[in-house]
């Protein structure tokens, strides 16, 4: 079984793809059947992934040598692209994680999407997404990865715009696609440069060649390539300054937010950087860039999250912030910590999104956290699982988030990035604060009498429970005392740091402080008025934060004024200069010439006859009085 799964790992993306095709072409009229097909596809894929992952993680040979199956995709002299699957610990972890989370979310969606007119379509899209995401995770070639990268972007686009009749959804979808497209432009340039410089895009070959990059190119060029490649992840993973699409992406159905915009797709950027670590590793400057981007984004997004009111938006900014952590970890050179945080984050963030979905489902899509309260009594499962998620993200031991965040903090400190460490630590405090603000406002405190919540059906709560368990124990694979994780997931050499107790205690204290502050401000009943007063006192800061530093407005202005203005100019130039002056001008010139000649045509027969005879005369004279050469000029036939 295990052997079979490992040698047929291409089944992992293929099964959901088949489910997609089956739904599109056959089962679309029957919603439940479509859902079953989709779930069967992803669960099948999960089983194969799990078996393959088991195979990988029980065979230490994989630490050195990945298992690659590849076939020629297309080729020409000087350019050959192979597509295939590459199994190594990182990709095995990734497909395992993605297919597991996706399976749970698919099941959840059966309940959440029930009764939606686009039920079948939804499952076809998410199946296609799962296929693309798994392909991204397992591909052995950067171009293949880019294909999957764009396909997940497409699915994200389709799913954000799933409620396409809403203008906000439509615009959010467009924004997501185009923002990612801008980033992909950089990534594409990076890939082109890699192809041109090194002549291959196969991961294995590239890693070998880049290890001796001096034979091919200079460090400057390689730095440029690394920066270009990094632009892709900035867009896809919602890093500053291309983070704007991610909060808007919450227009999509909540399972989509959980699956795509929290657990899997948005971390594809982290995954890509981890996959191309051999490139970044050679270029310290690019590593610094990654670290600074990540650290800054983490803090930046966390500050915005503090003031937001919509439940999913808070989670979205939290996602941006957490991915910032992952980037920071990558930048300080610890792929281990980064991917560990990705792993735990997938569980608790998916859990929280699904919990939020459950809340929205119960409240009929009322999203403002200030209008909720006390929900935990009516929705105990949702509430308590959400609390587990909150503990995990805040970094309270022994929940998953603690171990991974702690490792990131420790690594940052160890690598000597003190400023970034302080930023990350402060972010940890903010994270605990805003997340517990959300929890207290939503689940505790007074009930809002307008709401009539009810617990969601089992098909929704069971995935919540599953994810809650994972959020609790998922981090135990990588504690400082039992570092299984770092033995398998690493770049270069496994790194076994001594447990840094100071950092650990510090992070627990920060998290507890954040939670306590949130409790004081948002749970102690009378304090709510205090919050309002606080917000008014620091009105400027509050407004700037609430409006997300006005970055969306700046982009909108740039897009609508500069780009559209330029487009208008080009168009006017085209119709008035190229077309008007040159093309129609030539036409008019021809007409003018014709008008001029028209005067000579009197239209009177005798006039014509007169000229005609003059012409005949001229010909006769020429023929009769000149030599044969001139005559031949008229008769024709140049010999």
């Amino acid at each position, binding site marked *: 079984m295990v052997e079979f799964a490992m040698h047929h790992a291409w089944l992992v993306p293929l099964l959901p793809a088949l489910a997609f095709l089956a739904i599109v072409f056959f089962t679309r009229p029957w919603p439940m059947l479509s859902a079953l097909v989709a779930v069967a596809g992803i669960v099948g894929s999960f089983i194969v992934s799990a078996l393959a992952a088991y195979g990988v993680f029980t065979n230490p040979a994989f630490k050195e040598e990945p298992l690659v199956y590849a076939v020629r995709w297309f080729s020409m002299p000087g350019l050959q692209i192979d597509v295939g699957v590459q199994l190594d610990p990182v990709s095995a972890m990734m497909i395992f994680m993605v297919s597991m989370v996706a399976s749970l979310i698919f099941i959840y969606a059966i309940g959440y999407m029930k009764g939606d007119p686009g039920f079948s379509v939804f499952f076809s899209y998410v199946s296609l997404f799962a296929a693309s995401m798994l392909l991204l995770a397992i591909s052995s070639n950067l171009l293949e990865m880019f294909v999957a990268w764009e396909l997940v972007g497409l699915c994200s686009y389709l799913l954000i715009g799933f409620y396409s009749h809403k203008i906000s959804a439509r615009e959010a979808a467009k924004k997501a696609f185009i923002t990612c497209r801008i980033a992909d432009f950089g990534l594409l340039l990076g890939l082109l440069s890699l192809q041109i410089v090194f002549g291959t895009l196969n991961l294995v070959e590239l890693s070998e060649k880049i290890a001796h990059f001096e034979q091919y190119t200079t460090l400057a060029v390689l730095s440029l390539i690394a920066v270009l490649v990094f632009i892709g992840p900035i867009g896809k993973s919602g890093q500053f300054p291309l983070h704007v699409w991610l909060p808007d992406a919450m227009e999509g159905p909540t399972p989509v937010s959980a699956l795509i915009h929290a657990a899997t797709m948005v971390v594809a950027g982290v995954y890509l950087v981890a996959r191309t670590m051999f490139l970044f590793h050679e270029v310290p400057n690019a590593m610094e860039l990654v670290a600074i981007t990540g650290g800054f984004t983490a803090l930046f997004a966390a500050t915005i999250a503090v003031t937001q009111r919509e439940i999913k938006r808070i989670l979205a900014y939290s996602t941006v912030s957490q991915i910032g952590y992952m980037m920071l970890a990558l930048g300080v050179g610890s792929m281990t910590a980064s991917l560990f945080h990705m792993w735990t984050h997938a569980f608790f963030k998916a859990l929280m999104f699904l919990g939020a979905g459950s809340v929205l489902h119960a409240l009929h899509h009322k999203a403002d956290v200030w209008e909720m309260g006390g929900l935990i009594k009516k929705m105990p499962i949702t509430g308590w699982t959400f609390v587990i998620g909150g503990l995990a993200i805040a970094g309270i031991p022994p929940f998953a988030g603690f171990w991974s965040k702690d490792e990131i903090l420790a690594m940052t400190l160890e690598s000597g990035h003190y400023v970034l460490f302080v930023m990350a630590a402060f972010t940890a405090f903010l994270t605990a604060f805003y997340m517990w603000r959300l929890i207290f406002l939503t689940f505790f405190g007074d009930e809002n009498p307008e709401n009539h919540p009810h617990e969601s059906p089992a098909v929704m709560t069971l995935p919540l429970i599953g994810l809650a368990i994972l959020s609790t124990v998922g981090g135990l694979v990588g504690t400082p005392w039992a570092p299984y994780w770092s033995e398998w997931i690493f770049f270069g050499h496994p790194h076994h740091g001594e447990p840094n107790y100071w950092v650990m205690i510090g992070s627990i204290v920060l998290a507890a402080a954040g939670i306590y502050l949130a409790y004081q401000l948002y749970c102690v009943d009378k304090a709510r008025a205090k919050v309002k007063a606080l917000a008014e006192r620091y009105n400027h800061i509050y407004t700037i934060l609430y409006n997300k530093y006005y970055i969306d407005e700046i982009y909108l202005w740039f897009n609508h004024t500069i780009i559209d203005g330029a487009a208008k100019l080009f168009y006017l130039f085209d119709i008035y200069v190229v077309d008007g002056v040159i093309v129609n001008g030539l036409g008019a010139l021809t007409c003018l010439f014709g008008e001029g000649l028209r005067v000579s045509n009197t239209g009177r027969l*005798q006039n014509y006859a*007169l000229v005609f*005879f*003059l012409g005949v*005369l001229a010909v006769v*004279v020429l023929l*009769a009085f000149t030599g044969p050469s001139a005559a031949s000029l008229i008769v024709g036939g140049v010999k």
Partner: protein
Amino acid sequence: MEGIWMTAAFYLLAAIILGSALLVVLLKNIVHSVLWLAVCFVAMAGLFLTLDADFLAAVQVLVYAGAVCIMVVFGIMLIQRGDMGSTNLFNNQTKAAAGVVALVLAVCGYLAATTPWASPAAAVPENTVESIAEIMLSKYVIPFEVAAILLLVALVGAIFLAKEVKADARND
């Protein structure tokens, strides 16, 4: 022998032809022009006789002097009623036309005068009709037939063109 008479006949006929042709062009009354045209045609027939083309002379008299002139007169009758006094005037490019004609005459005259023509090889046979008939109905039978068709087509065409269009038919 007959040389002097032939010479005299040529000059006389040439004078009549040119004179009547000039009158055709210069007269202001179109009917007079046509009458002088008939004179010209008849003189032309005479000229053909001096060229040993008796059959052609007959045709000339029959077709041109007879048929064509009469037809033209009928045509004039159909369209020019009332005062015939100034029905045949010059237009305003007379001088230019004269210039062109002068050039044409100069060139033609010069060419005719300077071209060394081959001397006559033999006399024209007596029975011209027979000879013409022979080549016309043997070697040139197809042009002959085509000419016949042409005449037929011209006949039909002329009828079609000249036919009175009924006012109520379509031309309203």
